[in-house]
């Protein structure tokens, strides 16, 4: 049963986005084989996307019916955009996702070891924030330790082939990385 809780910042936009995506998926599913038969390749995608459209409509209906969030006593209500960036997508999230994306894009280029080492160091330094110059050293040592443990478990024990990185392809480090 639905819970009548106040609408969260950006929830209506999300519900609309789900409906739009579902309709687009249904259209694409229809394009596979249309209504040419009941056992064609497009039938099941149409059933799945049809269920998405119906449930997205229900979700939108419930979201519209949900009461708006009230401002705390004595405070003026903030615009929804500001609430969205404060409650749902704060800067910490934006920067962390950007950092993860950079890391994942850098893996084929830098390789797993160097890329992960840099990512862990930057992420520890940014999120953990151990104070002062010693803090950076602690982050560095911690990331080196974690990387060593991951390398040992995955590369040595499980023999997982990790990306070597195109940058080191013709260097002496190739075999190690």
């Amino acid at each position, binding site marked *: 049963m639905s819970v009548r809780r106040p609408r969260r910042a950006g929830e209506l936009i999300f519900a609309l986005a789900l409906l739009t995506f579902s309709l687009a998926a249904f259209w694409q*599913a229809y394009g596979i084989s249309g209504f040419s038969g009941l056992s064609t390749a497009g039938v099941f995608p149409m059933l799945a996307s049809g269920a998405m459209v119906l449930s997205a409509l229900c*979700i939108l209906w419930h979201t519209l019916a949900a009461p708006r969030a009230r401002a705390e006593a004595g405070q003026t209500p903030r615009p929804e955009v500001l609430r969205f960036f404060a409650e749902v997508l704060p800067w910490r999230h934006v920067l962390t996702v950007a950092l993860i994306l950079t890391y994942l894009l850098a893996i084929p280029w830098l390789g797993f070891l160097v890329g992960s080492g840099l990512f862990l160091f930057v992420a520890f330094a940014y999120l953990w924030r151990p104070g002062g110059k010693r803090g950076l050293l602690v982050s560095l040592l911690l990331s080196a330790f974690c990387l060593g443990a991951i390398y040992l478990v995955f590369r040595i024990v499980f023999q997982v082939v990790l990306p070597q990185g195109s940058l080191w392809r013709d260097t002496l480090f190739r075999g190690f990385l």
Partner: protein
Amino acid sequence: MAEILASLTISWLDPRLLLLTGAGTLAGIYVGAIPGLSVTMAVSILISFTFKWPVNDALALIAGIFMGGVYGGSRTAILLNIPGAPSAIATALEGYPMAKRGEAGEAIGLTTVMSVFGGFVGILALALFAPALSDFAIKFQSRDYFLLGVIGILLVGTLSGESFAKGVFAGALGVLIGMVGLDPMTAEGRFTFGSITLMGGIPYVAAMIGFFGVAEALVQLHSLDVKAIRQKVERIVPRWADVKRYLGLALRASGIGTLIGALPGTGGDIAALLAYDHARQSTKNPEVPFGEGCKEGLVAPEAANNAAVGGAFIPMLTLGIPGDAVTAVIIGALFIHGLKPGPLLLVETPHLFWFTVGNLVLANIFLLIFGLTGIRIFTKIVECPKAILIPLIVVLSAVGTYAIQNNPVHIYWMLGFGVVGYFMKTYGFQVGPVILGVILGPMMDANYRRAMIGAQGDIGLFLWEFVANPISLVLSLFLVFMLLSQTPLRAWLVARLRG
């Protein structure tokens, strides 16, 4: 009888096999527990080393990994709210709230004992009822598998926090993701947009790790400054009174787990969810409400998913049909070792069947030992600051996703699913149904179409078969009951009847 006993105890008496089973179980527990590493992946990788081994050595290691891996998923479900495998989704619903209350040690202790109990029930069923149960499973038609898939997804939908519609949406989204790629029957492209990468489909591991690993890491960013709860691990061995109290439920859940595990294509994930639902329905006055750390909700799925291991071996060894993804990998290994899993296996090499049964018993004993002794070290993970844990989860998730097919594109999928999963979680969706949809979608599609082709494309005949066959009728009635009980239709019908 003497021959059976001799085969049964080979691995108990041979130090090498004993060591391999123990090492496999320990490895399975930790691999199953590491976010992003699935037991399927561990078996796939480790099995490749065993191809040149004697068959008994290979089977000993595999049995340990399988048994340990299914259990290991529950640890991260309890400690981090990241199920190590889909079969631990229901465990996270109750185990994580218990850990947040500082009862992680008790939750893991109870989980271990009930997993071992479930494991023994599954093995006993494998030994006693293998032929009978496989006879029953073979009667299932395509439409029954289709119905089982729909029921499985809707069951997860009912577990969805805020509304049934959100559960249905998440399940259907998962099915849609599972449809991407070339149609296995006609090779027509579905949602490929002409891209060669998409023609191969979206790997479910990338979706699973993205939705569970990355999305959870992003959610956890909100509580970065909140110190992790110091876990109470003083009491690991559960109270006898607790064990006694939940033994009846564990036995029923193990029965469900064994039966579901024995059905081809359905494994520990559906078994755990059905058992969780059974616990919810059968527990009238729980001490703690479901979803807030209810022990009944922890006991049932854990007993069921380990019971499903024994169950999954039944169709594998007697029919040559994999019970789940792991047994599919094991079947491949058995063929490489020159064995023919199927009805003739029990006739030609009965010692192998009993050796496997004995091995599973041994792995289960090791599970109890390792499960109850390694918790203190393991719980230290959650005492680690989240600012350290979150980047590590991201790196482990990237390795886990990459390792499946060594394809960098999969890690971009993982991040994409992680971001979508974060928004879904923020707005009250559960991501469990998505993953189940991805896994069950292709199976449901294939079985629906087989059933429709069997009915010669006649919709009337197709629907008639759902009520004409006793097994299909029971499943159909169960599905209708579920739909009625979860939607406003029930209230409307009751009002109409009373009015």
